[in-house]
């Protein structure tokens, strides 16, 4: 006789215990510290902070540890924590022109004020597994010892172009309202560009990468140049009413990408370069570049370009970019659905009986081939 499945509570407790043990692995191996993750998995930390919409390296590292390295799960953990936080105020808009650069490249100019600064990048490494890293690494010499002299601050390439009037301006219009906050307000469509950029900044890197890639393969009409990619620290300032001026409260590491695409002009607009913009926490170049491609693709309508391709479709792009939403909904298929399944089963049985009956009539008269 069937006994209904009871003890869900106990089963859940056991499962929680098992996942904690699976996360820890062999207890004979030293446990990872949050500080080790923060220091040695900085790119994972950057991605979790970016898509988790919370700049906190320690908590991002903790989330990565707790999620056993599953970054989407770590992003979810950080988001669920973030949603409980109080808002203390809005910062003054960040000035990325005053970034203390660790890396800055432009593929549009051979040389430029401030120069090309490669900084830490895998770009020109040969992707050969470094078996030396398998051995317990000895302490290497302090890289700070050979760091370059002094911080580099250089104007943005796009500012140089804008000076010549060849690039669309993006100055904040007088009376421009504060951007809506997607973490507080639902996405309403059509969305303005600030809202779209917010959505893309939180969006899944893999998703944006694929969409951006599609625009380069013919499912799009833009052919951008990387005017500039820069990575470094930017001051975060808060305007204090009581003081009457802005105070620097800290720094955030950011990756900014500006892709520019030529626009041949129209009756109303002069020929100029147009922008696609990407911004991410920490060192996140792939994300920032993919975001910039998609941002520009979503602007196709503004420039009278075709808008019928996937990356141009605002509703499609924005509604499916969030990996916390996507991951939850895809995986909810694991939940019991037997009530609905029962209704489908019943329907299918009826349709099948009907089909069998009518097909038996049709084929019953035929003689089997000799």
């Amino acid at each position, binding site marked *: *006789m*069937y*006994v*209904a*499945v*009871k*003890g*869900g*509570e106990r*089963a*859940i407790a056991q499962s929680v215990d098992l996942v904690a043990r699976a996360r820890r692995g062999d207890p004979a191996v030293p446990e990872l510290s949050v500080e080790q993750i923060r220091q040695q998995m900085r790119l994972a930390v950057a991605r979790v902070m970016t898509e988790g919409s919370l700049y906190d390296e320690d908590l991002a590292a903790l989330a990565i540890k707790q999620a056993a390295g599953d970054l989407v799960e770590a992003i*979810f953990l950080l*988001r*669920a924590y*973030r*949603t*409980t936080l*109080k808002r203390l105020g809005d910062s003054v808009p960040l000035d990325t022109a005053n970034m203390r650069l660790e890396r800055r490249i432009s593929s549009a100019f051979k040389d430029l004020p401030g120069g090309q600064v490669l900084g830490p990048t895998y770009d020109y490494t040969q992707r050969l597994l470094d078996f030396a890293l398998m051995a317990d690494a000895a302490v290497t010499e302090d890289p700070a010892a050979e760091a370059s002299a002094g911080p580099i601050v250089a104007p943005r390439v796009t500012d140089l172009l804008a000076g010549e009037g060849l690039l669309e301006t993006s100055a904040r219009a007088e009376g421009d309202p504060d951007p809506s906050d997607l*973490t*507080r*307000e*639902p*996405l*309403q*469509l*059509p969305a303005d560009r600030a809202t779209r950029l917010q959505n893309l900044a939180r969006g899944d890197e893999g998703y944006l990468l694929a969409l951006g890639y599609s625009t380069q393969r013919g499912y799009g009409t833009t052919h951008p140049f990387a005017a500039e990619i820069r990575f470094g620290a930017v001051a975060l300032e808060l305007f204090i009413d009581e003081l009457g001026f802005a105070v620097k409260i800290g720094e955030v590491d950011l990756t900014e990408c500006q892709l520019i695409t030529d626009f041949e002009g129209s009756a109303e607009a002069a020929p100029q370069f147009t922008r696609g913009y990407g911004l991410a926490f920490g060192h996140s170049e792939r994300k920032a570049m993919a975001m910039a491609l998609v941002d520009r693709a979503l602007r196709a309508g503004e420039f009278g370009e075709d808008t019928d391709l996937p990356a141009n479709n605002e*509703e499609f792009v924005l*509604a499916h970019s969030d990996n*916390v*939403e996507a*991951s*939850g*909904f*895809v*995986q*909810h298929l694991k*939940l*019991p*659905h*037997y*009530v*609905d399944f*029962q*209704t*489908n*089963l*019943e*329907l299918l049985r*009826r*349709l099948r009986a*009907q089909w069998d009956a009518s097909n038996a009539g049709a084929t019953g008269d035929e003689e089997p081939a000799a």
Partner: protein
Amino acid sequence: MTQAEAHDGYNFAYLDEHTKRMIRRALLKAVAIPGYQVPFGSREMPLPYGWGTGGIQVTAAVIGRADVLKVIDQGADDTTNAVNIRSFFRKVTGVATTERTREATLIQTRHRIPETPLSEGQIMVFQVPIPEPLRWLEPRETETRSMHALREYGVMHVKLYEDIVRHGRIATTYDYPVIVNGHYLMRPSPIPKFDNPKLHRSPALMLFGAGREKRVYAVPPDTDVRSLDFDDHPFAIERWDAPCALCGATDAYLDEIIIDDKGERMYVCSDTEYCNDRQQAGHHGTQGGAPRA
């Protein structure tokens, strides 16, 4: 009923009071315009999207210390997701929980409405995956919003008509579309159409929360809820040839359970509390009827 202690470190019912107020405002609007989908600033919850975050936020926004909460999934109190959501609310509110429909003031559900009739003052909270009834017919939100405004529901009738032409019957069996208060087309959430009649002029308040899609909607008490149909193909609910094998009920929604590897099957109530109650009251099915502990 079981009483629990609230969890330290989080506000009562997890969400901060501003967020709860924002959700309650959206719910008030939803109650004022029955069946209309109200956008709201859905928050990330500590449970995944698609696992009941909309329902959880609605429950969190309306729950008070005196409430008695029941949580079901597939009609059962003991499915893992129901257990998990109930334990979440025990942890963050400390309110009493129950499996008894009559005792509950607040019932959060996924995919079912209890068999025990609801009464005035009770609130049902439905977890909704996709709130838009026209979504499979028109994927664009910008388009469906104006279709609702214009009551342009012809496509849904055409869809049901095409079912009849192709299969001789309407092939929608759950999440069966309804018209609320003579105006808005509404998805009742993926409840079997068996439960649709329970929505019609229910004395209880029905609240629907879709977290990932960031919408709430409502059916206030005593509101007309009509399942779409045609004069010559009237709406009908599922019927089973056999009664519940445990309690003998013939008026309940039954789950089919495969009991051996030869595919032998039996039918039992999906509403575990209803089934237990009947067994305790002395009703028996073919498979006996010791109450499921």
